[in-house]
């Protein structure tokens, strides 16, 4: 699932502005889930949230020429989701007088909204970890743990030696280790790379 290359955001913006579909895919893949997480915090309704967020991406596509930076796209997305959620709650409250919506609206204070945005974005950045490993590292880790390939297969496919494969694997695991706290180590590694746990328990 392609993501935006953080080191070349200017290229990304140019492509996005010119209506490049891959650029749209990238921004969608990067922000859809965090935005749904955020919206659901407010609405407490996953189906309504997904519809709403999808509509905002439709709007985004139509406005693609208006954006000159990733920051401005991000801002547009979160502001739009927030507005759409609050409107939805207001309409739902009026239409159905359903207690759940009233409660959701009461809990959608400024603080809750801002904190939910912060959580969504932190999650996005932290759990993007795998995708921000150096490229060859990332490929080796993916192929080892996600595709279940053997070192020899990986070496052949990437055109490198088996010992390089092993080095990259250790390096990737080492980098992930550094980014997690004491308690998080076992939990985080096991959840990202369950087969890796025997490497780390050595």
């Amino acid at each position: 699932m392609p993501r935006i290359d953080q080191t070349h955001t200017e290229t990304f913006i140019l492509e996005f502005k010119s209506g490049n579909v891959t650029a749209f895919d990238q921004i969608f893949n990067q922000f859809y889930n965090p935005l749904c997480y955020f919206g659901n915090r407010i609405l407490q309704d996953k189906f309504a949230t997904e519809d709403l967020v999808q509509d905002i991406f439709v709007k985004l596509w139509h406005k693609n020429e208006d954006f000159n930076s990733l920051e401005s796209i991000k801002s547009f997305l979160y502001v739009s989701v927030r507005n759409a959620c609050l409107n939805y709650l207001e309409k739902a409250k009026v239409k159905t007088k359903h207690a759940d919506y009233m409660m959701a609206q009461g809990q959608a204070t400024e603080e809750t909204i801002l904190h939910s945005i912060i959580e969504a974005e932190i999650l996005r950045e932290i759990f993007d970890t795998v995708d921000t490993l150096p490229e060859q590292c990332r490929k080796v880790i993916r192929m080892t743990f996600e595709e279940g390939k053997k070192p020899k297969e990986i070496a052949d496919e990437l055109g490198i030696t088996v010992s390089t494969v092993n080095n990259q694997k250790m390096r990737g695991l080492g980098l992930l280790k550094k980014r997690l706290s004491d308690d998080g180590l076992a939990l985080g590694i096991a959840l990202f790379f369950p087969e890796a746990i025997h490497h780390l328990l050595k």
Partner: protein
Amino acid sequence: MDEQGINDALRMAGILARYLKAELSEEEEKELFDWINKSESNFRLFANIINEQNLEAYHQDMRSFNTDAAREKVKEKLGIPVIIKMQPKRRWYIPAAAAILILFSVSILFYRQHPKPLISAYHKTDIAPGGNKAILTLANGTHIALNYAKNGKLAVQGGTVINKTANGQIIYSAASSALGAAVAYNKITIPRGGQYMVVLPDGTKVWLNAASSLKYPTAFYGNERKVELTGEGYFEVVHNNKLPFRVVADGETIEDIGTHFNVNAYTDEPVLTTTLLEGKIRVSKDGASAVLVPGQQSILPPNSNSISVKEADTEEAVAWKNGYFNFNHADIKTVMRSLSRWYDVDIAYEGNVPGRHFTGEIHRNLNASQVLEVLSDLNISFRIDGKKIIVTDKK
């Protein structure tokens, strides 16, 4: 609330994420601490995100949305042609948190009938137990998430060096040059789901339970050693005739000279309880006081200074520090409050609050579902829903 508020939030999110990845510049660190110190709710958010269990729970939430399907749906709406790529089959397993925790042995001292599983997707939605998490706030407002800090020297406060010696422990070593320096206070805050141990500048050891905090000076001198506690702490005080050690908790002062005692000052518990294991302490509030000898416990109701003393099971009072829950004819709400702090969950009651009482000991290092299984029986059932435990009276 305007767009600027959201842009500020997006900025803080980036800074917080970089804090967790240890990629913050000094300027950003200062900006972060200023933001944390601005309000209680900012501090709470910070305490929330330094807890991996929370991040992982939220992450599960975030992953529950199907990105690929949504993207294709949107592109269909936009009339963008969809190219179908063949992906290699993913084998991406998420083991039960319990599988990792098989390292901890289960020792359950009372037998219960085991009903059917509490949660259908046991592997994905169970709640892991608490761990060594705490935030150390220095005198200048700097915050250190101790579970993210490396072992070794953390900071220097006046003439005192603070070292993290192991997961879950920090030690203050005061040099004699600390005397005469202006008094500086540090505070260690334990969020829900956390615990930590600090060795104070005089060698006194304090174990702090989940949802607690301790405020103390970085060097002890003058005519007393005074600390402020919220929540629960177990103290092993180093003897010093000239400098009595005093703990102030929710208006009550516990004074002793060289002793081991536990203070339970959670404000959501009905009374403030202090239990003495060794030595001698005086407990006082608003003019009233009582002296305890080992094996005794003082009980102080809220908004009152009427202190009563009784014999107590000291093992029960300090079980938490030894890694256990220990309940002695405890009602369900008391039990669930303990669980709520250690597992960092909210509790909801469906129907009547069950009138059952619980007695026994359970390891703390179990997943929530394992503890709840022990507590369930024909009349009470539990359900885990995200970060919430729902209690149902089946009668």
